[in-house]
């Protein structure tokens, strides 16, 4: 016999199911008046520092149908590469930028859309800079455990080429699944990040 380690086990995940919005976005499913507004709809205000951008995309199942019942969360650094979190030890993040957003995918089109700022660079474990990125977390009916991935920016080719995380992806073609293409909409840069759950273009998901 040896001494017991006495670690607990993490509670196992279960799917968020088709009714996740009742708990996360009740106003969006007409359960109004319980709380003032759904959390995470707005990331930026007039005083937020940095370049305003739009982030949009859809999540496709294995037959190419967009999920119209998913929930997408994003988490990112501010324009200077700092996170608005007590665990951020490198400095104080922009107090006018929460860095976290959450949206249900659209009931008909399956689209999600965030107005945010372009994040600055954040160091990897060994101190090398990672390319600017946004952490993306997806839950939905049929997804047993939340999916973690990252959005990178197509106009950051040099930073992407040296990003230690992107370079851990063995097949270069799969790195491209994390790079959002850039366009323009109403004078703002819009980055489109389509997520493919299966198939030839299956998005790289992380075990973080």
């Amino acid at each position, binding site marked *: 016999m040896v001494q017991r380690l*006495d*670690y*607990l*086990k*993490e*509670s*196992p*995940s*279960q*799917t968020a199911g*088709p*009714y*996740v919005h*009742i*708990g*996360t976005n*009740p106003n969006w*499913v*007409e*359960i109004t*008046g*319980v*709380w003032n507004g759904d*959390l995470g709809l707005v990331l930026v205000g007039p005083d937020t520092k940095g370049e305003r951008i739009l982030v949009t995309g859809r999540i496709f199942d*294995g*037959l190419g149908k967009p999920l119209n019942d998913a929930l997408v969360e994003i*988490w*990112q650094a501010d324009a200077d590469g700092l*996170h*608005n*979190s*007590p*665990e*951020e030890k*490198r400095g104080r993040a922009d107090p006018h930028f929460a860095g*976290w957003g959450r949206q249900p995918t659209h009931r008909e089109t399956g689209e999600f859309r965030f107005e945010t700022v372009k994040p600055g660079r954040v*160091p990897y*474990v060994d*101190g090398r800079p*990672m390319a600017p*990125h946004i*952490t993306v*977390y997806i839950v939905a*009916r*049929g*997804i*047993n*455990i*939340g999916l*973690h991935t990252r959005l990178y920016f197509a106009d950051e080719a040099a930073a992407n080429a040296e990003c230690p*995380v992107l370079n851990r*992806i063995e097949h270069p073609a*799969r790195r491209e699944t994390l790079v959002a293409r850039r366009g323009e909409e109403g004078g703002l840069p819009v980055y489109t990040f389509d997520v493919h*759950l*299966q198939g030839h273009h*299956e998005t*790289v*998901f992380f*075990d*973080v």
Partner: protein
Amino acid sequence: MSDHKGSYFQRDRDWHPPAYTPDYKTSVLRAPRQALLSLDNTISEMTGPVFGHDVLGPRDDDLITNWAKTGDAIGQRIVVHGRVLDENGRGLPGVLLEFWQANAGGRYRHHKETYHAALDPNFGGCGRAITAQDGSYRFRTIKPGAYPWPNRVNDWRPAHIHFSVFGHAFAQRLVTQMYFEGDPMIWQCPIVGTIPDKRAVEQLIAALDRQNTTHMDALAYKFDIVLRGRRSTLFENRMEGN
């Protein structure tokens, strides 16, 4: 000495459900098939949003009254309470819990719901709480009903409450469900059955807690939630500031 400021313990993927679980049919087209890319925790995953008590309304933790129009919600009145811990057994303060559930008849208030059971005009089905310094939380609700769902011809979900949990880092983000002690339908459910280990399922079954019932008011169920633990930094080889 262990100050638990290091990276998070690796997630035990054999304890969680795999992505592809054909008895839960919707997973078939929504399960990634490629191996996940293993990623050492970076600052992006070791930080996470913080929610203060200012986001909560006065009745977020009382589903019996927080959407009531003409009276209390109908059903077995219960208090759900417990602690949010990490794998080191430490209570985690400041954790935002969001919960949602069907009404006493098993019906959700949602545009996609097709079950015949009646809506309760006094029940919305959502609530929130933030854990106290010792990781404890509590809320009051009604016990949700079981309900049929379109999977196999005659599948029913056992009574359950959904939980969304924000820990101190995005690496701890967890969505799960709570079941009720003594319910035989737990062991017939394909969604519960996505969890490969019976002991892991048992971790999601709240115990009937007769010590904490409210006299002439509510039964109590105790439900602890465990999020990933952190390593001690004592001998960890990391750059300053990581």
